[in-house]
């Protein structure tokens, strides 16, 4: 699903955010991207989302080389990806339903389809009862879940999350991680950037580690800590 081949990203000020990064993430796989703050996690996700272009190397997402995607096609490419960011990026003056429906509206779905799919997505994240509520009235955890519902409503093949639990308490964070695992079990490829090693420590998924822009580990975590014990 994702293939990074000797990818380097230098910002205009000369700062090298990624250096010769190589890794592969297969279809239906779930992985965590870890590293200290400034290690290059967000830059890597931005490159996958085409919010940034790499300086050198090649990135292939869903069999598509990203350097071949022109500016006007970026929007269509992004429709195949679900995105969750630390700041939930929700429209504050709109309702939960309106926020979750956005990807379907942009994809030109029928009104009836939008309504049913939004309800299904909200049901998955446990917010169906708050469908008509304005975003401002929701707690931070609920807003994060709205953001997840928006990311999955159009049934993307790839789900990207950048510090999705950054603002949440441990209980809620675990709940959110379980949600991602559920989506992964349905066949969605999931890549989550996080620096919360405590949270992912007991989960049985690959951990990709970035350090000062270099991929220092792409190992497979075979068993959870509890199982080892």
């Amino acid at each position, binding site marked *: 699903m994702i293939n990074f081949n000797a990818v380097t990203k230098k910002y205009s000020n000369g700062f090298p955010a990624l250096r010769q990064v190589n890794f592969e993430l297969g279809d239906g796989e779930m992985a965590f991207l870890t590293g200290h703050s400034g290690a290059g996690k967000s830059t890597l996700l931005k490159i996958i989302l085409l919010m940034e272009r790499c300086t050198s190397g090649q990135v292939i997402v869903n069999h598509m080389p990203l350097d071949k995607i022109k500016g006007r096609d970026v929007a269509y490419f992004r429709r195949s990806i679900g995105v969750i960011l630390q700041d939930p*990026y929700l429209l504050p003056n709109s309702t939960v339903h309106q926020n979750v429906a956005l990807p379907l509206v942009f994809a030109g779905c029928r009104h009836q389809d939008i309504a049913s799919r939004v309800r299904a997505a909200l049901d998955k994240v446990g917010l169906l009862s708050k469908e008509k509520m304005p975003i401002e009235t929701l707690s931070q955890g609920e807003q994060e879940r709205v953001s997840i519902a928006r990311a999955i409503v159009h049934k993307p093949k790839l789900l990207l999350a950048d510090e999705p639990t950054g603002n949440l308490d441990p209980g809620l964070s675990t709940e959110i991680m379980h949600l991602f695992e559920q989506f992964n079990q349905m066949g969605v490829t999931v890549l989550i950037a996080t620096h919360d090693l405590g949270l992912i420590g007991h989960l049985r998924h690959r951990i990709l580690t970035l350090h000062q822009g270099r991929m220092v580990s792409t190992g497979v975590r075979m068993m959870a800590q509890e199982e080892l014990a």
Partner: protein
Amino acid sequence: MTEEKQIVSAKKWMSHSFIEATLFRLRQYLLGHYVALRQSAHELRQTQLGTLLTFLMIGVSIALPAGLWTVMHNMKGLTGGLSHNAQISLFLRMDISDNEVENLMNALKSNRAVASAHYISPAEGLKEFSERIGMEGLSDSLNENPLPAVITVEPKLVGENDKELENLTVFLRNLPGVDNATLDFKWLKRLHSLLAIGQRTVYALALLLGLGVLLVVINAIRYLIQRYHKQIQIYQLVGATDPYIRRPFIYMGLQYGFWGGLLAWMMDNLILLVLTPSVRTLADSYSVAFHTPYLGILALLTLLFIGSVLGALGGYSAVNSYLRQQQRA
């Protein structure tokens, strides 16, 4: 069902499905525009004072050239009664006989350089003169008519070649029965030149103020884009295309221009309403027919169209520049 029937049925289904899909896409497209229009109107209502000031700025920018154009247009109307061609006035001898006048008229009409010749008798001349100066009983108070008979000649040389006209004047002056001949040409030429300069000034002003409208709209839309920066980012993140993002801002620009055009039309008509009595008095003093030059429905439609086009262009330009900047960043 035979294979042939199955193919026909499949073709029918496909064509029906194609029509349905096309209609759906068309409906979605129109719906998208309707939503963008409503959204833009809503956004403009949110910033009432700012929106009103922008409307006024655009209104004034459009009203000025439109008003000047109307004035120039009416000036041309007022001078429209005056011939564009040169005119030569032949003042005949005081003692000229009717026979000589007839011979002279025949000679003039048969001359290839003369387009037309019109005889004004001394009595007609005095009547016209007394009417123009507002002393209708002047002819009765005079024992003798002091005015000579006059023939006004319009040459075929359409006022382009001064030398030829002067030669023709000299020729006509030397005809038997003619006392003097004057060429009434330069003042008319100057007047038309002044009007032409005025007209070009209006065009230049319209161009500059049109650019002004464009800049006002660009500035206003840039401000709105800054306000909706995060919303645009969210839209882009979840797959909104550039045309989708551009649309509401283009409609905002279009509405700025549309209402600005309407304001311009109202402002111009208000100014003309105030000016009309004074201009009418002036026109009456010169015995020139004057019609109130209000801007009508056609002018309104033109101003609305120009305003809307400039506004939409400004909106497009502002949002496009923002999107390009984002792509570069």
